[in-house]
């Protein structure tokens, strides 16, 4: 694939990559750094990309691997913002459009619930249900069999269902 074509295609996935990066890092600045690193690595390893395969999945795979390699250490620490202060209740949805109180409450609940899912459950859930990737693509990104992806998504939904009920009662969903 020509460099220009590669670059153009890669750039088309910027918003989707940034979106996942925000959910992974829970921090806008770190999400930006993560995405920049993802593109830097994608460019460096562009010769490994096989034309005809899905670039979106390939880019997501690089992003996730970069996150796991370089950012995940921090996940084991208490959530700390880049300013060094706890960011436990910092809203992840601050860029969301204006909404009424009920919707905002639902967003906050969803945000809290998603945070409580571990990365290996949260990522396939978001990739499949929010980004609309196929299970095969998610499996490639997660580097595991499709059956495992199905199982993780199923368990993530069950966990999410339980958490949302805890927050808002059965009527919340």
């Amino acid at each position, binding site marked *: 694939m020509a460099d220009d074509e590669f670059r153009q295609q890669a750039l088309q996935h910027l918003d989707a990559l940034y979106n996942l990066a925000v959910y992974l890092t829970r921090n806008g600045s770190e999400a930006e750094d993560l995405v920049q690193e993802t*593109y830097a690595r994608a460019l460096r390893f562009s010769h490994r990309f096989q034309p005809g395969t899905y670039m979106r999945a390939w880019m997501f795979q690089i992003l996730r691997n970069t996150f796991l390699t370089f950012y995940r250490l921090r996940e084991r620490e208490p959530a700390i913002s880049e300013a060094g202060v706890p960011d436990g209740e910092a809203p992840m949805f601050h860029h969301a459009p204006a909404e009424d109180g009920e919707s905002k409450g*639902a967003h906050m609940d969803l945000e809290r619930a998603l945070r409580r899912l571990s990365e290996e459950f949260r990522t396939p859930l978001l990739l499949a249900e929010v980004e609309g990737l196929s299970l095969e693509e998610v499996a490639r990104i997660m580097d595991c069999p499709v059956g495992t992806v199905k199982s993780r998504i199923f368990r993530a939904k069950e966990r999410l269902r339980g958490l949302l009920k805890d927050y808002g009662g059965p009527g919340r969903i």
Partner: protein
Amino acid sequence: MTNDIDDHGGEPDEIAQFLRERVARHQAPTRLRAAVVETLSPSEGRRRPSLWLPPALSALATAMVMLLWLAPVLPRSGGDPLQLLSHAVMTEHARAVLWGEARPDAMPGALPHVMEESGVLLNWVFTGDQDLRLVNAQPTFLEGRRALALTYQDRDGHSVSYIVARGPNVAIPELGRVQIAKWRPLVTKDDGFALIVWKQSGLVCVMVSDLVSEDDLGRFKEYFVKVRSATELSQRY
């Protein structure tokens, strides 16, 4: 494409629907898009602002002095914004060491003025302790970016410059990053200087000093922890 996995024996997948409707989509900020375009097109990158008038004469004077004095050693290579910035930081550090005036008594009182001129806001800043003293603060201009330069001196007389530059389109590579306390900045040596580079609040931060030996580098990392843990930045201006 959806993946409504039937997880309730035929029930509609309400969680999937809820996620699709409720999960907020975060659009990449414009500055990130610009940075990625630059990353993807290094030869076409590094477009500088077409016009920026320094808000104060001191910033302009600093930049002019740097240009005049450092012209012979300005980097010749194009393309890598981080490398160019690092070289600019080293020359700024050299300027501070050679010509900078230690004004510890003026610190931290001079900081508000410096922050305003540099466009970098320090909500909190490390103003020194028994090991490291803040001796100067200057607005400056590095590689087309407004910046703030703080100079510290340790007990042995080593100068440490801490420079914060506006410029989110500088990507910090993963190669060379090391874990220091709970952070993982890039640590590098160049031309007899040691540099620690990281990003904070969308700003590029660099600490530079001549503490390059193994022992000295350990001390330099301790200084980094002091500065990093006690400094909170924003781009308010």
